[in-house]
């Protein structure tokens, strides 16, 4: 435990000094994505409900903060007031989506959630007329950064002649938030509700026969997962200081789902691993592909961006073929598959 804490604390300093602040930024995003993946893990991993529009809740959280803390409406609410509100609103959206759809079979649920995600994005894109609410495709800019102890987190801070940059400050805030989410996730998993979720995932009819109110418990999974997404969204908006509908496409939902499934559904350490890998590896590749090709062939033969996605797709296929339960599956699951 202590070792992990020390590693987490010095990681940005080491990486910032050796690889530059761009990589600390990647770590910030990794923490955000881990929060998202853990939220989706509640829905997909614990309760076994396939949600393909999860990013919509992230969008709800992000836009809520953007609207309440930017010059767009002239409001400047503090983020610590908006985050709980974002969790609440996203949770309500979760119930709004879940209530009519949860009695559908798995794959229907997938397509409906996918449609819901697209609907939210299209609304964000078009709600600039007749009343300008979301500023349409242009997005909302100049969002307030996080304020902590009267200090704007986007500005560097000097401690004893040692300057800590804004991205690093955000890193510490995000890591603490992510750890809180991990903690909540673990406690949920071991709780009565968590066991009810797993029971529903394994066999819904049997769970019902054991006296679990499956509809309410599933709704709770949806709402909980959504509220995690809402919180991560608020943090994202404050970090970027800009939101636009582009950040909340279907591909993002798929990316988060891949983190959950590749890592190991329902297994919190696995999901964290998946989140870390899928944020860091593509980034490393994005920066590495061009120079490597240059060194090998003397010129850039293939578009690095296309190559990156191509390898991402191939990796998805390969991992699933060789480790269908994910890279780091839950031990109990592994036993079942080993039969």
């Amino acid at each position, binding site marked *: 435990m202590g070792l992990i804490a020390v590693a987490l604390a010095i990681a940005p300093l080491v990486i910032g000094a050796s690889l530059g602040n761009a990589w600390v930024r990647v770590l910030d995003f990794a923490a955000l994505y881990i929060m998202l993946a853990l939220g989706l893990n509640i829905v*997909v991993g614990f309760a076994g409900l*396939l949600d393909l529009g999860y990013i919509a809740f992230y969008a709800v959280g992000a836009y809520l903060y953007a609207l309440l803390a930017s010059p767009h409406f002239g409001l400047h609410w503090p983020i610590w007031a908006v985050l709980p509100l974002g969790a609440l609103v996203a949770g309500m959206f979760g119930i709004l989506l879940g209530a*009519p*759809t949860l*009695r*559908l*079979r*798995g*794959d*229907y649920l*997938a*397509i*409906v959630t*996918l*449609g*819901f995600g*697209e*609907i939210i994005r*299209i*609304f964000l*894109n*078009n709600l600039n*007329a*007749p009343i300008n609410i979301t500023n349409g495709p242009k997005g909302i800019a100049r969002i307030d950064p996080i304020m902590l102890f009267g200090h704007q987190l986007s500005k560097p801070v000097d401690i004893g002649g040692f300057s800590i940059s804004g991205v690093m400050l955000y890193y510490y805030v995000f890591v603490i938030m992510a750890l809180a989410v991990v903690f909540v996730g673990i406690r949920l998993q071991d709780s009565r509700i968590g066991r009810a979720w797993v029971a529903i995932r394994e*066999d*819904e*009819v*049997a769970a019902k026969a054991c006296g679990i109110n499956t509809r309410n418990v599933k709704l709770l999974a949806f709402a909980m997962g959504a509220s995690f997404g809402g919180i991560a969204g608020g943090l994202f908006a404050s970090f970027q200081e800009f939101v636009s509908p582009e950040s909340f496409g*279907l591909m993002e939902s*798929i990316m988060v*789902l*891949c983190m959950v*499934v*590749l890592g190991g*559904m329902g297994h919190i350490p696995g999901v964290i691993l998946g989140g870390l890998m899928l944020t860091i590896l593509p980034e490393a590749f994005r920066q590495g592909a061009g120079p490597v090709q240059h060194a090998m062939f003397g010129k850039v033969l*293939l*578009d690095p961006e*296309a*190559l990156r*996605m*191509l390898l*991402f*797709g*191939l*990796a*998805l*296929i390969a991992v*699933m*073929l060789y480790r*269908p*339960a994910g890279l780091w599956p839950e031990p109990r699951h592994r036993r079942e*598959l080993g039969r």
Partner: protein
Amino acid sequence: MDIFLQQLINGLTLGSIYALVALGYTMVYGILGLINFAHGEVVMIGALSSLTIIRLLADSGLPGPVVVLIGLVFAVVVCMALGFTIERVAYRPLRNAPRLAPLITAIGVSIVLQQLAMLIWGRSYHSVPELLPADRHEIFGASYTEIQVIIVVVAAVTMAGLMLLVSRTRLGRAMRATAENPAIAGLMGVDANRIISLTFIIGSGLAALAGVLISANYGIAHYNMGFILGLKAFTAAVLGGIGNLAGAMVGGVLLGVIEALGAGYIGDLSGGIFGSAYQDVFAFFVLITVLVFRPSGLMGEKVSERA
């Protein structure tokens, strides 16, 4: 009235293409219970590979429809091989894996195909040469083109052929048996693996046809065209009741018509608050409404939860 008729014609055209693609989804789902996310990309590969041949032959002096036909045959062959390969590589090894594993490989295949297409054909939009007769005709104040007629007729004939194949032939009976229960079908002497391969091949052939038709309809092809089309077609399949062939056709045509009418009228209906940008919302909204009131789709059978 003329707007209504016009949008009805446009919707029918689009809907019959959706129906062709939806058939591919529904056949695979009926047999494997798998959402073949890569199916939309097969449509895209069909459109672009036929375009390559059509461009090669465009100046050869052959009559336009013949050139398109050659392009179509080429695309069908390419897509059938592709469908066969996808099933072999990405789905067959995972037949007994956890339910989400094949879904993730499907997403992987979809990404790979899209990026390969981008590397081969580039990022730009390709215009499709006008080789099919495209004259406009007037009917009750609305206009239709000959291409639209061709699309609807070709789609209808193909679908009728497929229905005959599935309901009347030995192969069709084997397909239905495998969909019902692969293990029992195997006991009756049906080679389930062969049937599944054939299902993918037939579905991909239909996808190639849909790709050629849709690029002829819009006059444009692009490496990114498959995904949203696949999404709509899957929506159509669910709308009609997934796993049900007739349902996919009805769902496809219905979705096309609803979308076109929605785009045409949504502005007036909402007093100008919503524009035609909300066309896609309309499609999904209809889907959600139908599923809430008829969870198994319009023509799907009621399936009770298996204990």
